[in-house]
């Protein structure tokens, strides 16, 4: 047994147990402490990554770490600690201090962490479920709120469909290869094609690609806002890590390229057009994330070093922009009666310059304006796609980006430029929220000007 390879997961597990008991023992007054502790558990897990010797395998080779997994885990732990720091104030203001939040978030992180390292379909299945079930509970957290319950139920139902597809795909894989281990496979047969079809569908559902996206707007809309920042980022990070691995193994199949391209084109165009019809900013961002799923899928359409590195960079900075924007949204929501309708954002940027500017920076980053780091990701994706000979997909990406610019701008102009009755004046930031926001902003701006700070850690 190689315990060293499991170091960060061990740290997380011990932290989760600790938080579980602390939640039982301490009373509601220590709600904030639990979150900060949870954040630090995640930071310790991050630190422990430096002591992991790579490459290593354990658990009968079902669990593998290499510098590729370390990159993903590093981002994942940073993400979960940042989201934990940003969570507590919202729930205090909403008068629902539930002590289970920190360990549920960490439990989900633990599942995703295992997921990243799994090289076997069975362990992949178990770990993705560990993460998903924690997230279903987190979505339903606001027990008194009808929307929260409804969205959690929808999420659960759609998630179960994904689970079924996942299982079915794994069965076909076993039928084709006689093993659950992910290994290079060159034989083109029906069983294997079915595996690709089902498995990609399952993953598409989890990353909310069209036509498997239906849960996303509802889940984002109903879930507690600060948690959306976590739900929308951490699982995606892990899933794209898996997709990259699958691309390296299976992308020589024609079916792979066709399916990925179709999913990606549908997501980009459907979501970018639908986003214009949204009146709720949360739903608007949900559609933005569906569109981004389309962009990211382009990065796994073809096995190419430049393309996959660009994808991982793009993803690595995108998650911070999403997290940051949901922190701003949850700060706004702390005002009584705020429901994220577009009209309620009128003048909010002028009233709260700090939050408004922060949100605008994230929106401009989504559009792909330099010096925000997402622009470097976009450039890298273009380069990779052109190199892979997929110029037409690159062109589709360009057109979709142009379409998307309008709705981000709409939100920005509502916040800053539009005149008229200002219904909400502003809100305060807690220490944790401002810390998270600051880190996200620094990431986005610094990595835009010095992308090598992250790029050098991406090793395929």
């Amino acid at each position, binding site marked *: 047994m190689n315990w060293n390879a499991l170091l960060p997961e061990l740290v997380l597990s011990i932290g989760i147990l600790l938080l579980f008991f602390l939640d039982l023992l301490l009373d509601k007054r220590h709600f904030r402490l639990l979150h900060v502790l949870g954040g630090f558990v995640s930071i310790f897990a991050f630190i422990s990554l430096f002591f992991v010797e790579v490459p290593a395998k354990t658990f009968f080779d079902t669990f593998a770490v290499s510098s590729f997994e370390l990159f993903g885990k590093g981002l994942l732990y940073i993400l979960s600690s940042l989201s934990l720091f940003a969570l507590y104030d919202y729930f205090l203001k909403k008068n629902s201090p539930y002590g289970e939040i920190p360990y549920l978030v960490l439990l989900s992180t633990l599942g995703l962490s295992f997921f990243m390292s799994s090289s076997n379909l069975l362990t992949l299945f178990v770990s993705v479920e560990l993460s998903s079930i924690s997230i279903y509970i987190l979505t339903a957290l606001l027990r008194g709120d009808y929307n929260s319950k409804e969205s959690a139920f929808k999420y659960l139902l759609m998630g179960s469909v994904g689970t079924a597809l996942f299982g079915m795909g794994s069965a076909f894989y076993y039928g084709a290869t006689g093993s659950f281990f992910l290994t290079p496979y060159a034989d083109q047969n029906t069983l294997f094609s079915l595996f690709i079809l089902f498995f990609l569908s399952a993953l598409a559902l989890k990353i909310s690609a069209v036509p498997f996206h239906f849960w996303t707007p509802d889940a984002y809309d109903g879930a507690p806002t600060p948690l959306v920042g976590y739900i929308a980022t951490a699982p995606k990070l892990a899933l794209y890590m898996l997709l990259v691995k699958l691309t390296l193994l299976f992308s020589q199949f024609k079916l792979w390229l066709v399916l990925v391209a179709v999913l990606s084109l549908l997501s980009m165009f459907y979501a970018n057009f639908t986003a214009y019809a949204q009146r709720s900013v949360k739903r608007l961002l949900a559609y933005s994330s569906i569109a981004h799923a389309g962009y990211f899928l382009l990065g796994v359409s073809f096995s190419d070093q430049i393309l996959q590195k660009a994808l991982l960079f793009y993803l690595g900075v995108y998650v911070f922009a999403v997290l940051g924007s949901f922190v701003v949204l949850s700060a706004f929501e702390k005002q009584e009666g705020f429901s994220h309708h577009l009209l309620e954002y009128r003048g909010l940027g002028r009233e709260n310059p700090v939050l408004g500017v922060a949100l605008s920076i994230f929106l401009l980053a989504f*559009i792909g*304006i*330099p010096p925000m780091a997402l622009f470097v990701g*976009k450039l890298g994706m*273009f380069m990779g796609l*052109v190199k892979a000979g997929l110029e037409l997909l690159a062109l589709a990406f*360009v057109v979709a980006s*142009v379409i998307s*610019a309008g709705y981000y701008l709409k939100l920005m102009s509502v916040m800053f430029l539009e005149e008229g009755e200002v219904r909400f004046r502003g809100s305060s930031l807690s220490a944790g929220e401002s810390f998270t926001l600051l880190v996200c902003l620094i990431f986005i701006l610094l990595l835009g000007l010095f992308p090598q700070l992250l*790029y050098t850690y991406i090793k395929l």
Partner: protein
Amino acid sequence: MGVLLTVAIFLPLVSALLVAIARNSTFSRVISIATSVVVFLIAVYLGLNFDWNNPSFQHTIKLPWIQPLGISFSLGLDGMGMALFLLTALMFVVAFVWSAKIEDRPNLYHALFLLLETACIGVFSALDLFLFYLFWEFMLIPMYFIIGFWGHERKVYAANKFFVYTFFGSIFLLLGIASVVIYGYIVSGSVSFDYFFLKNIQYPLWIQLVTFLLFGLGFAVKVPMWPFHTWLPDAHVEAPTAGSVILAAVLLKMGTYGFVRYSLPMFPEASKYYVPLIFFLSVVAIIYAAMMAIAQTHIKRLIAYSSISHMGLVTLATFASDWNALNGAIYMMVAHGLSSAALFMSAGFIYDRIHSYHMDDLGGLARYIPNLAIVFMLSGLVGIGFPGLAGFVAEFLILLGTYKNYPVWAFIAGVGMVLGAAYFLYMYKRVMLEEETISDYRREKWSHLKDLELHHWIAFVLVLASSVLLGIYPLPFVKLMEHTTRMVFGG
């Protein structure tokens, strides 16, 4: 000297941060004007030290930046870059002097203009395509807010339209950059965004044809060429005066600058292949925009259409594959920068005094604000190419060069120039001379109108004196243009 150029780019950025956090609006005004003057002095100093006999980029600096991607912080100026740097630096001095009395959120206003100055100078001096795109695209953010915050009635619409149109062009440009970089990688085995590296690659014809379109779309929206021009009249109409000045004098030049700097040398065969298309679009722009200008009653919209018409001349001459024509095109960039700036300042002044841009509300103003009548006339004469002023040299060179290879197109362009005289004089008549249409009430009200103040005078004198200088002593400037032309055509 590259260090000085770097200072000229980042000094406004530093000042912008200072101004943004300042509490005192006088402080921000002083800092902004001082910054722009220092940058202008740097530009003049670099201009005087520019050796036009030395056929390479000058005042260069190259620092390692993002090594894994072959990106370096590389700056340098050729003749065209130098001329446009001078123009930019001058225009920002003018813009800040003009805005000396702005009351509405002055700190933010000055900070955004300073950011814009950084981006503009960066575009004209970047020698690395990544750096170039960074400045090119960053320019959108301050301009968006300048139009959106200080614009007129439909400012939100105009700001969004400006942003979306420009972004539409530049994302294609980004794909174009990615394509040439990848082709360079396939040919040489290393990723590099360096301008000279990418320029010296021989691209096969089909790659040239595709990338020319990708680059060209980015530039064409900014120029703007017909049919991508519709954002410009809206943006100009809604923008505050100083915003219009910068937009017309500096931002539009980025598109034509891009054609000369990137499209012509990098894709020489495609540049010949697309000549009919570009000529067609340019001539449509020249004639159609001039006709549109005649039909306007909104003076800013009229000037905006005249810009489109003039920029059509520039794109026409750029691709005429003639030494004189290209000189003329670059000369026209500077001359049009001066004339449109002066015209927009005149229009802005009228709006400040009378609160209307519509010809129906105006008339006979020459009697009440005679000084403006003089500078307005001069500004217009620069634009329509009156001999002795900057526009004349430019138009003469353009016609001379284009006529050699393409006499028919040159003739049509000449018609456009005549129309230019027509719409300007028509506007002048309606606004300044025609007294019959104005009511007694207006006469009474206008009899107390205040004429040009000191800061208006400074701004006008700076622009018009430069126009006269370029008109009566064009030699050093033509030498500057020739420095670039020689690089493009070789020899």
